[in-house]
């Protein structure tokens, strides 16, 4: 049944076959995208008309590759910009929240903890429309009473960052809380006894301990922001993020440039995953060697 117990041949073969089937189903669509990114055809479909890199580097009309396609390139830059702002916001607030819920005692703590978890179980579409409604109401109210038009409260990058941060901060908080739970607080006590104040202790003792978790949480935040669609679609203006632009292109039918964009994304993700895997492997080897 498990690796340490003897099991029948049919069980082993059957289970391996099931897993191969599963991985085939998961990876064939990605392979299909990759294959058609290099097909010398104006449509992302077979038959195979020869290998080309035009969907990456092409400049000619009708065969513009990703590196010369203004629309997709702009989407990538907008997504990176939004991602960086969201990462900055969520990492700072998430770290505060982790300290707040792990190291502080206050009234209504349970209530705030539930409120902090709640964005996790609210569909992204709802977060999108609620932020849109709230921002518009506040914007109209301010304009009516003071007469100032707060542009940033109408759909645009500011609202996209707000909407995405609304739920991504929860993920960041949970990752950092998990690490903070393992923190030995007697280290803090020692620092207090040596005359450090609360912020010196946090800065010199706790934050260095949390660093790997904070970096990991920041990476997760960036990725979640980069591929967010449901919340973003209600909050975006003419400056759309990459997933929105990809959606429109796929819906309307497009040249294989969408495949090229996907290949670039898949390559980046795989590289990160591979590096992560190799680092973990090295670490486990080191600990075995001890």
């Amino acid at each position, binding site marked *: 049944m498990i690796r340490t117990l003897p099991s029948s041949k049919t069980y082993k073969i059957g289970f391996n076959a099931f897993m191969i089937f599963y991985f085939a189903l998961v990876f064939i669509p990605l392979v299909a995208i990759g294959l058609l990114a290099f097909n010398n055809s104006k449509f992302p479909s077979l038959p195979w008309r020869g290998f080309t890199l035009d969907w990456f580097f092409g400049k000619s009309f009708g065969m513009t590759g990703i590196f010369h396609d203004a629309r997709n390139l702009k989407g990538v830059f907008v997504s990176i910009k939004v991602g960086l702002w969201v990462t900055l916001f969520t990492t700072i607030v998430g770290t505060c929240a982790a300290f707040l819920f792990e190291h502080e005692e206050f009234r209504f703590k349970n209530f705030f903890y539930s409120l902090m978890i709640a964005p996790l179980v609210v*569909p992204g579409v709802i977060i999108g429309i609620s932020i849109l409604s709230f921002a518009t109401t506040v914007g109209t109210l301010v304009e009516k009473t003071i007469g100032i038009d707060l542009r940033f409260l109408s759909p645009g990058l500011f609202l996209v960052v707000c909407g995405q941060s609304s739920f991504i901060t929860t993920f960041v908080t949970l990752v950092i809380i998990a690490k903070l739970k393992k923190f030995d607080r007697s280290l803090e006590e020692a620092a207090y006894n040596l005359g450090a104040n609360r912020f010196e202790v946090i800065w010199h003792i706790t934050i260095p301990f949390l660093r790997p978790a904070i970096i990991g949480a920041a990476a997760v935040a960036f990725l979640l922001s980069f591929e967010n669609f449901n919340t973003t679609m209600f909050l975006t203006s003419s400056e759309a993020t990459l997933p929105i632009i990809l959606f429109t292109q796929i819906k309307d039918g497009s040249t294989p440039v969408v495949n090229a964009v996907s290949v670039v994304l898949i390559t980046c993700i795989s590289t990160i995953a591979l590096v992560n895997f190799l680092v973990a492997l090295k670490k486990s080897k080191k600990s075995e060697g001890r």
Partner: protein
Amino acid sequence: MMNSKRSKIRWSFLVFFIPVFLWLTLLFLLPNVELIRLSFIGTDYYGQSGATLGNYTVFFHEPIYWLTFTRTVGYSFVVTFVCLLIGLPVSFYITKVVGLRLKGLIMTLILVPFWVSEIVRVYGMILLLRETGIINRILVGIGIWKQPIEMLYNDVSMVMGIVYTATLFMIVPIVGVMDSLDDSLIEAAHDLGANKLIIWWKIIFPHCMPGIMSGCIVVFMLVLGNYITPSLMGGKYSLWFTQQIYNQFIAYVNWNRGAAFGFLLLTISSLVIWSALKLTGQKLSRVSGVVK
């Protein structure tokens, strides 16, 4: 001495509390309150706006709205169940069956498509399944099929697509809890003569319940709130409730009705999650701790 220490601690408390408080109220609580408020406001024939239940009554009077709603909820249950059926053996394989050396590699292979955006994964399915897609070309090319068959744009393809994009969210939390299950418990049960069914029922399920619940909740919510897959892979009649919300907000600019629909979606999602937690005796804070 004691006093000064206490006042310092309160000061640090405020530094942590204020950003968190602003986040939770301005970006979550107040927007949702505003959404609910909007849903009870309507405009009459004379252009006067006032409190009304009209945005909700229209939902029950127009079959297209409540039928889409029931369809969406029903399919969300089906997809969650199918994802669980796939997720359990896959997680079991990763954590308990495969050799320890391969485990890290297989986990990486599971996670790569997880991080590739949903839209890319759906695009891959479309390239394979559509009438001019790869499967049709190959099968017609070697003569198995006489002519291409449109496999996209129906409920089956749509459900397949959603299962494909959602299964990974089931696997990750279940792998998390299964990893912490001590193998010796299974070994002991086996030595005492328990069969596989009993081991699953008495040992694996009880231990993995937080992870299973966490996976089910995340998958159910993601499927219920999905927009990309039904829009790209569903047919003319494969309506999803999020599309109705989108239409009310963007196409008809009827935000009040859109807000009411949004609140209905939020209500059913919370209700299902709450009853699932009650039925299995889990707590959301415990379940969410599994998500990492």
